[in-house]
């Protein structure tokens, strides 16, 4: 036995176990680590047995949560041990301690490969398992052919084959190119004929991954999957060891049904009939049995069958069976089944029109909202949210409000948001909506985000009938002894605007309103004080004729805050004070706010962002979401070409409601100062917060500054040259930016082809200069004008190219630092007496020094977070983007080797991409990119770029922008920002590129 032989290890484990507290444990662990470190330092006298023992100890310590930052080499070295027990330990511990990016792992790649292609089956298994668990891109490139060979070899035994299948799955995920779709679909189809259920289980996992990527290529496998299901369902040829409590491998059944869910439909009538027969059997034949395990296993299959039926959404009768089953499940006592019933019912609502039937279960679902189990409550909440419509909104929202009082903190924000959205979406009348939101703020103010109260203000402003009601409600809440700060804000705002509508009611005179609000002032925070000051100004304006006593009181407050330490408050106090002395003019300045333009609710957007997750947010996720929700308030910088009179920006902070009044104030101020003759209504911009997201509307054309550039794209020489190119040089250049070989230039006499290879920060280009004519070309000159960031060495070019000949000129490229400038080839020759001279851009562009990387969420987010601020992380709203779908954008980025990681961003409208950039100054540098698109307006997006080098970040951002903005600009590299990136005048290449 491997361990019982290792006494030292057992002793160590029991000592750890006997530690009385964490501190003792830590001391013991430290001592052990010190010991192991010493032993490893002095390799002499260290037997393989010792190594094995220490490596196990390290794994044990690592499992306890202590950092083990040494000894990795020893673990890896055990892999090459000749004997099985050591080798096994080496492989296992390596795959636990290291990750795919670890350098030591690369060292082991040869040993691993030898084991894979060797004759020893047990070694093959170990090696395949390691690669399957932690193999990275390097492994994918060097091992994929070997692994594929094993998988399709007829002599390879099942125990190896099943591991090869999952190993290939890993390699495929690391680099999808390792599986050649054309040839592989037939092989996959053969693999699914496999009789051995172990191999079939692994192959099915591989298959799921392949079809999820591209189902089109695998139609031929579909009937095979159905065959597998038939075999299992009829229990044909299923060995005893693969039945679990009498059920033929439930895991394989589930996997197979999952694979089928990646095909949109099933066209072949025979296959379809066979599948429906199996599904029907599962739906009808699954009974509740006493044995828990059997019951779970059969229901696992049943739920998967339900999901498949829903996905196919074909047979009306089967669908109603499913709904009936789910209705039964959500009422059972067994919590697992109830949980899954609720979950699947929510899914069902999304795929098909069963709302009416599900509504019949509403009472039952509401009961689950009060279940003692939070998992079940969450499912019930999601389901209620999904099934809500105008007919049941009142009931459901009231239930949610009631639940809000007792819900745990982790759920309250989600609950509040969902209640607010439902109330808004399905309000039978608007006063009910106001009631709901105010109740929401009252009950769970801490969990009501600003968006929610902004939204209610918008509604009230836009609906005159609602204004007295809302003001009255706000007034009532103020009578409560303790009210939430958010309630204070919304009440103060509403009463400032509309309290004059209540003036005849008892307790609602301007004076009374003022004093009840002012009573609360000492308890509120600074931002709220600003709102209160605005409210006072409004009250003052509405109390006509002026009440001197009230006026004096309010003036006293204004003058008190004139010296406030908070700039916002101070400014308001000063301005309101000055304005309120203007008498009648005050009426115009502080008049009621105009209506808001109708826009999509920011809440719904927010909910869409949150939708992706079901539960409490992880640090990673919530961070990603914060970023997403920042996107909601894109009150971004105004484009540079907008007239400078946007003085509000200098005076108020945009993202808060406080600015509503200031808007007017500012306009007044600017007007009186005579700066501008005419004030355009800026509401659209300044109210970015209230208006729900989106940047200032209708601004565009900022980035179209490339228009004239587009015209100038043709080579400079063209105008003088009598000889015209026969191809579109700009387009060829664009192609070559994403391809590595092709034609760079061609005219009736000459063709210049190019072929490039890139490795890290170096590249090798070969220019193929071809003479197309039957006479020779004279005075051939090729000179490279390099930009400052590239080192270029062109081998000598012969002066004469013989007829019909082609000469090759290698060109070495070294990338010194990140830059978007391009190198230019000045190419001239004489044909007869005509001199032809062309300046051609060389496709040694920024993206050529990218090396694609795919990052998982766990790799991406820590990096993203650590690059927190400019200049390492830059953000910009890009307008004038050429319209493309997300898919097209993904393809574009991928073609530039900015590899998009689908699903990393919780918001489906966003893309996240990564790449490694190589240059001499930066070495290899990870670059991260995030693009947030706006589905409502495809011409604008927000771009965020991060890397460990500020120049790189800037250059990359500009580069991506160029690719995204209108087409001609895409190929047009630098000089867009000459002010930011001055081109040194001593740099001929850059200058020329600029001219181009």
């Amino acid at each position, binding site marked *: 036995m491997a361990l019982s032989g290792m006494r030292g290890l057992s002793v160590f484990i029991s000592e750890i176990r006997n530690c009385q507290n964490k501190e003792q444990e830590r001391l013991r662990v430290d001592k052990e680590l010190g010991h192991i470190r010493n032993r490893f330092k002095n390799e002499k006298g260290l037997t393989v047995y010792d190594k094995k023992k220490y490596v196990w100890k390290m794994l044990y310590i690592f499992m306890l949560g202590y950092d083990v930052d040494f000894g990795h080499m020893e673990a890896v070295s055990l892999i090459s041990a000749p004997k099985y027990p050591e080798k096994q330990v080496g492989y296992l511990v390596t795959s636990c301690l290291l990750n795919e990016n670890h350098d030591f792992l690369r060292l082991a790649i040869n040993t691993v490969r030898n084991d894979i292609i060797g004759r020893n089956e047990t070694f093959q298994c170990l090696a395949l398992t390691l690669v399957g668990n932690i193999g990275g891109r390097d492994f994918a490139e060097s091992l994929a052919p070997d692994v594929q060979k094993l998988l399709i070899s007829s002599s390879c035994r099942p125990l190896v084959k099943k591991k090869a299948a999952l190993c290939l799955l890993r390699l495929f995920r690391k680099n999808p190119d390792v599986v050649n779709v054309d040839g592989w679909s037939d092989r996959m189809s053969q693999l699914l004929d496999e009789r051995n259920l172990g191999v079939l289980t692994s192959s099915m996992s591989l298959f799921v991954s392949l079809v999820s990527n591209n189902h089109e290529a695998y139609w031929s496998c579909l009937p095979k999957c159905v065959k597998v299901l038939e075999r299992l369902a009829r229990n044909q040829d299923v060995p005893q060891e*693969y039945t679990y409590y009498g059920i033929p491998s439930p895991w394989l059944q589930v996997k197979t049904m999952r694979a089928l869910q990646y095909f949109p439909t099933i066209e072949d009538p025979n296959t379809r009939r066979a599948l429906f027969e199996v599904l029907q059997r599962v739906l009808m034949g699954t009974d509740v049995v006493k044995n828990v395990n059997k019951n779970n296993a059969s229901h696992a299959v049943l739920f998967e069958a339900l999901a498949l039926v829903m996905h196919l959404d074909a047979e009306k009768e089967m669908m109603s069976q499913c709904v009936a089953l789910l209705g039964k499940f959500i009422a059972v006592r067994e919590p697992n089944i109830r949980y*899954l019933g609720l979950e699947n019912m929510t899914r069902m609502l999304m795929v098909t029109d069963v709302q009416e039937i599900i509504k019949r279960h509403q009472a039952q679902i509401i009961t689950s909202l009060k279940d003692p189990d939070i998992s079940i409550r969450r499912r019930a909440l999601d389901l209620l949210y999904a099934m809500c419509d105008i007919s049941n909104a009142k009931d459901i929202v009231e239930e949610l409000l009631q639940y809000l009082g007792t819900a745990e903190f982790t759920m309250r924000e989600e609950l509040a948001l969902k209640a607010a959205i439902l109330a808004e979406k399905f309000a039978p009348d608007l006063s009910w909506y106001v009631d709901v939101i105010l109740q929401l703020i009252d009950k769970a103010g801490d969990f009501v985000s600003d968006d929610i109260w902004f939204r209610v203000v918008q509604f009230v402003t836009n609906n005159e009938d609602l204004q007295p009601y809302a003001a009255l409600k706000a007034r009532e809440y103020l009578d409560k002894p303790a009210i939430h700060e958010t309630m204070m804000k919304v009440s103060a705002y509403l009463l400032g605007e509309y309290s004059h509508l209540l003036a005849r009611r008892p307790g609602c005179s301007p004076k009374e309103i003022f004093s009840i609000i002012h009573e609360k002032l000492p308890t509120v925070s600074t931002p709220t004080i600003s709102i209160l000051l605005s409210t006072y100004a409004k009250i003052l304006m509405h109390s006509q004729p002026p009440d001197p006593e009230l006026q004096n009181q309010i003036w006293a407050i204004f003058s008190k805050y004139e010296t406030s330490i908070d700039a916002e408050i101070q400014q308001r106090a000063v301005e309101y004070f000055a304005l309120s002395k203007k008498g009648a003019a005050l009426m115009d300045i502080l008049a009621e706010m105009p209506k808001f333009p109708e826009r999509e609710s920011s809440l719904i957007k927010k909910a869409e962002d949150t939708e992706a997750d079901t539960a409490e947010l992880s640090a990673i996720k919530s961070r990603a979401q914060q970023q997403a929700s920042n996107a909601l308030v894109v009150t971004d910088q105004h484009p540079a070409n907008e007239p400078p009179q946007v003085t509000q920006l200098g005076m108020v902070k945009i993202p808060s409601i406080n600015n509503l009044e200031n808007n007017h104030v500012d306009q007044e101020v600017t007007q009186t100062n005579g700066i501008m003759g005419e004030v355009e209504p800026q509401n659209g911009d300044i109210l970015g917060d209230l208006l729900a997201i989106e940047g200032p509307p209708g601004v565009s054309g900022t980035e179209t500054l490339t228009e004239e550039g587009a015209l100038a794209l043709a080579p400079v020489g063209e105008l003088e040259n009598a000889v015209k190119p026969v191809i579109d040089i700009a387009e060829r250049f664009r192609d070559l930016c994403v391809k590595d070989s092709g034609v760079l230039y061609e005219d009736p006499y000459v063709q210049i082809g190019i072929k490039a290879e890139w490795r890290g920060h170096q590249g090798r280009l070969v220019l193929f200069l071809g003479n197309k004519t039957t006479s020779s070309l004279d005075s051939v000159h090729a000179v490279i004008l390099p930009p400052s960031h590239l080192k270029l060495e062109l081998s000598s070019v012969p002066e004469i190219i013989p007829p019909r000949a082609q000469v090759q000129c290698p060109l070495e490229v070294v990338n010194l630092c990140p830059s978007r400038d391009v190198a230019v080839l000045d190419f001239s020759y004489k044909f007869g007496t005509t001199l032809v001279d062309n300046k051609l851009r060389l496709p040694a562009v920024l993206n050529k020094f990218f090396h694609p990387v795919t990052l998982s969420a766990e790799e991406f987010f820590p990096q993203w977070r650590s690059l927190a601020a400019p200049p390492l992380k830059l953000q910009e709203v890009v307008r004038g983007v050429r319209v493309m779908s997300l898919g097209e954008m993904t393809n574009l980025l991928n073609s530039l080797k900015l590899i998009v990681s689908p699903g990393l961003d919780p918001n489906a409208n966003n893309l996240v991409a990564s790449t490694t950039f190589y240059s001499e100054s930066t070495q290899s540098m990870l670059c991260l990119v995030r693009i947030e698109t706006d589905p409502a307006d495809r011409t604008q997006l927000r771009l965020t770029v991060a890397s460990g080098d500020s120049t790189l970040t800037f250059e990359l951002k500009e580069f991506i922008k160029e690719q995204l903005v209108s087409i001609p600009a895409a190929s047009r590299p630098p000089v867009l920002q000459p002010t930011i990136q001055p081109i040194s005048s001593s740099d001929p290449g850059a200058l020329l590129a600029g001219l181009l």
Partner: protein
Amino acid sequence: MGIRFILMVNKQGQTRLAQYYEYLTLEERRTLEGEIVRKCLARNEQQCSFVEHRTYKIVYRRYASLFFLVGVDNDENELAILEFIHLLVETMDRHFGNVCELDIMFHLEKAHFMLEEMVMNGCIVETSKNNILAPIQLMDKAS
């Protein structure tokens, strides 16, 4: 992608085995394990076996003093995973004979070997107990 991690934790919350199928830093593991233990161990028998946590769904089962916790994606079949846990326990039972916490503690390597035969890269490789245990038996025989 299926199974993201498998944890075995005793009722005091001490980790007895941890196998991750995605890379997390040590710090992330520690936090994650702490959060999960706090959440799952506080639950009672009448509650369901699924807990939503961060982007994971935890499918868990308790055997005497030991909790088996499996973190999966949102689109895994929960019951299939729940029974997979039981299959793991039955397999360990067959090898150790009535497996207990101490068996796993002191034979960590065997527990790992079994797991390695059953799960690879987050996918189920093998569900036949004979096949799962074959390599271990081979090794026992050899030594």
